[in-house]
């Protein structure tokens, strides 16, 4: 693989950029792999990357029914934060956030990580108490967050209307090292690094069945034929229930549509990420100047990547009352993704009833921020067959045993 650097740019500039080459190969599947990962989203690719990098397992295929990064990884609003309440959540989200800090260097691919600061508005007294509690929890967990007064909020985001018609801003929870990154670049950077390690990323290839013998996985059927494997990782987000059914078990997951939209590009007006969970909307501004906007999920099961129109209206209503300056903006594009919602709004990184078959899912509306940490933890689980400390609480049996990781305060709405 040719390293990307300032010298490479200079060299290519002198020869009409004719020497860049492909960022990853497009191989035909082999008959057999040590590990197959289903799903080339951020979590699947990161799992493969850390399998190679941390555990030396490189005979790996990543099988993707569409194009890599075309699922939720390429559809999200790219918010990165780790200000969660429960210890096990903040451990894995903070691991991910700290890996994001150096990911561009690690992958030799500019993922445009922008720790611009993240603010969660408190607009009810209940939220004030909840966020202050989270700030205290974060201090004990070693995650740097703080409480801001309304005046401090106005300072970091001058376009805000503190005295909105429905919910005045009573303060906010601030994570200075939260922010955004370029979502496609995260998928592409991991894909390029995986391909460089000799792993096969097989796109336009749908897994249609999971094979087993004596309770242990032996391979998969795909639209490009049968492929054998010693271990299988299922990392398919909204389609987790569908693939789990092929593997013979049921998950505590429901699939629903979540939408996002961007406005026409304008000059810089907001240089942090703001989330307003009571009125249901969040916003940041991309480098191109578009406002990147999202809200809540639809309430019913859906696999169509199309959401309900009234949720767009609800989201924009919330943001217009919080930031009146945006009321005249036109919206450019809007789209949906299928998110995998668990009963306690926390992810699943787990062994399964099928031997040597592992699952990573349930990231729901908030898994972009977790990609590096989740891949790290999933790779350890797949490599060793047992979860390490990051994943151990996130097994799928917690629902039977009542060990919920309840993040509905921190993640019930938001991203």
């Amino acid at each position, binding site marked *: 693989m040719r390293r990307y650097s300032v010298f490479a740019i200079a060299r290519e500039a002198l020869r009409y950029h004719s020497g860049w080459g492909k960022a990853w190969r497009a191989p035909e599947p082999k008959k057999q792999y040590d590990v197959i990962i289903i799903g080339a989203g951020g979590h699947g690719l990161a799992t493969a990357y850390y399998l190679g990098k941390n555990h030396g397992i490189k005979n790996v295929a990543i099988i993707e029914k569409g194009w890599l990064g075309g699922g939720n990884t390429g559809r999200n609003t790219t918010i990165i934060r780790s200000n969660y309440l429960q210890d096990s959540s903040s451990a894995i989200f903070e691991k991910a956030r700290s890996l994001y800090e150096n990911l561009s260097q690690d992958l030799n691919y500019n993922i445009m990580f922008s720790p611009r600061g993240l603010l969660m508005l408190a607009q009810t007294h209940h939220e004030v108490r909840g966020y202050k509690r989270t700030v205290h929890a974060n201090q004990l967990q070693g995650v740097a967050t703080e409480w801001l007064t309304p005046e401090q909020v106005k300072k970091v985001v001058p376009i805000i209307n503190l005295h909105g018609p429905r919910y005045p801003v009573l303060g906010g929870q601030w994570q200075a090292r939260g922010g955004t990154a370029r979502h496609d670049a995260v998928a592409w950077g991991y894909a390029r690094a995986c391909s460089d390690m000799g792993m096969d990323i097989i796109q336009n290839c749908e897994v249609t069945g999971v094979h087993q013998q004596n309770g242990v996985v032996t391979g998969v059927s795909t639209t490009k034929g049968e492929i054998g494997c010693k271990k299988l990782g299922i990392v398919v987000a909204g389609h987790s229930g569908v693939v789990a059914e092929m593997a013979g078990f049921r998950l505590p997951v429901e699939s629903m549509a979540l939408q996002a939209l961007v406005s026409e590009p304008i000059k810089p007006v907001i240089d942090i990420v703001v989330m307003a969970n009571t009125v249901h909307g969040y916003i940041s501004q991309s480098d191109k100047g578009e406002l990147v906007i999202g809200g809540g999920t639809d*309430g019913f*099961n859906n*696999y169509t990547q199309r959401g*309900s129109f009234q949720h767009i209206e609800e989201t924009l209503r919330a943001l217009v009352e919080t930031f009146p300056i945006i009321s005249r903006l036109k919206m450019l594009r809007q789209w949906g993704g299928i998110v995998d919602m668990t009963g306690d709004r926390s992810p699943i990184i787990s062994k399964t009833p099928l031997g040597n078959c592992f699952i990573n899912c349930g990231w729901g509306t908030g898994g972009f921020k977790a990609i590096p940490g989740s891949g790290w933890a999933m790779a350890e689980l797949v490599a060793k067959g047992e979860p390490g400390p990051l994943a151990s609480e996130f097994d799928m049996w917690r*629902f039977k045993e009542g060990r919920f990781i309840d993040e509905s305060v921190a993640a019930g709405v938001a991203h």
Partner: protein
Amino acid sequence: MLILECPCCGVKAEETELAPGGEAHLKRFGPGSSDEEFEAYMFARKNPKGVHFERWRHAYGCGKWFLAARCTATLEVFGTYPAQTTEPPAELIAKIQAKRPDWKGWK
């Protein structure tokens, strides 16, 4: 936009009038049940990509609960029926079978 005909009041209700209530025909488990039964009742939804039977409430209309059959892969609505039943009506099942020959049935 999703439109469901409320079988209680006959109104063709659009989405903003309706509140979704999740999977229909759940068997409820109470005290004395096993952990497995409880988990299945509380969390292990079918979540099919295809035909789905679900509960809805005509929240900003007559206020009553009812049931609907819908396809989660196409958003097609097959029909609605009253909540006072333990299984989908036979005509509705026949209608869905005619439209979806591969469908494995509602159980």
